[in-house]
């Protein structure tokens, strides 16, 4: 059987291959009813914003379906990609995911950067969602660190989700 190919860093010049311009963060087109912006800063262990990173999101549509044969099918793209900017900021424009069987609504997140030899994975959960209390993934996270996986609502249609790769308030990362 063939053996797995190792991961390597994206290096500092990732934009040359991975920058889709405005199409990257556009999980849904501008002006889509119900669209929200999810944005945040990617930080290193000293709290310095990371300007050569990449954040990708993957999620269900508002009905809990994925554009994939094993996920019920959907016209929704489900995928967002954002190179971090000169302030370390990433963002996607999307629709809020629906609940899944036995799981609270969430987005899966991959983070890549210079200095990261493999991606790290985390999840964005929605603040104050009743299903968070019984979510099986959140239940595996020590209570005092759970907050790093929950976005903050900062406007009518805007959520904030900072990612800290290292340090005191290090984001919880998941081995999937």
């Amino acid at each position: 059987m063939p053996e797995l190919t190792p991961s390597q860093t994206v290096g500092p010049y990732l934009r040359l291959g991975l920058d889709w311009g405005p199409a990257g963060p556009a999980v849904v087109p501008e002006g889509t009813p119900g669209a929200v912006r999810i944005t945040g800063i990617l930080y290193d262990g000293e709290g310095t914003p990371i300007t050569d990173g990449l954040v990708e999101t993957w999620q269900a549509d508002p009905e809990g379906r994925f554009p994939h044969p094993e996920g019920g099918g959907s016209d929704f793209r489900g995928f967002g990609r954002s190179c971090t900017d000169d302030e370390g900021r990433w963002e996607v424009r999307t629709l809020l995911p629906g609940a899944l069987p036995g799981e609270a609504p969430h987005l899966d997140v991959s983070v890549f950067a210079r200095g990261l030899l493999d991606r790290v994975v985390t999840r964005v959960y929605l603040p104050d969602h009743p299903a968070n209390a019984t979510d099986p993934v959140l239940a595996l996270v020590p209570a005092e660190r759970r907050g790093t996986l929950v976005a903050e609502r900062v406007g009518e249609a805007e959520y904030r989700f900072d990612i800290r790769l290292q340090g005191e308030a290090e984001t919880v990362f998941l081995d999937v």
Partner: protein
Amino acid sequence: MTSAPRQRESRYVRPRDTHPPLDSPEYRSTGLRHPTRAPIVVPQRLTEVTGPLLTGPIGPSDHDLTRQHAGEPQGQRIIVTGRVLDSDGRPVPDTLVEVWQANAAGRYAHRSDDWAAPLDPNFSGGGRVLTNALGEYSFTTIKPGAYPWGNHPNAWRPAHIHFSLFGRAFTQRLITQMYFPADPLFAFDPIYNSAPEGARERMVSTFDMEATQPAWALAYRWDIVLRGRDQTPFEEPHA
């Protein structure tokens, strides 16, 4: 009360002895960027066993990095081909492969690459292709040069092409680098050597005489293997 073990939707094998440790001190930039706590192992559920099945964005000259400008880039023209497979040997069809690289002199067409090697006005260094029904991909480019970096005194990266792959599930996502055979810089490169011994060799392409084009281009072959499905049935925990 027990229930019969059953296969839920696909699950994907967890890699062992394959990926570099995130804390790899020889590669200095990992210092402030590796998480210090172990990741929490979570079961693969719908979000992880599905993934984006993208077929774009792909432009008409994305598969040929030598034809993206009015003139021909400097350097040795090469064809890079291979297959994308999963670790149970199945081809991964119709999956997006994105590549980026330095020019023949080892310089990236990127505003923050300030190495004193010439930029090539006819080379941008980014490309995209989809695998076909057999999981095969092919693109044309020029052989990238080695380049110096600031990691340690007299540090040089072996020539490489960056590759990004999706597969068919979130768990299969992979970003890696393809190297060229017998590069004398391997022994000195902390990024290449961050992958475990026995695994790092899988990132080295082979020279492929059969795929060369007479009086036109040399050729290299590189297969990429993503996480395959785990066939072991497992017991659903009782509610």
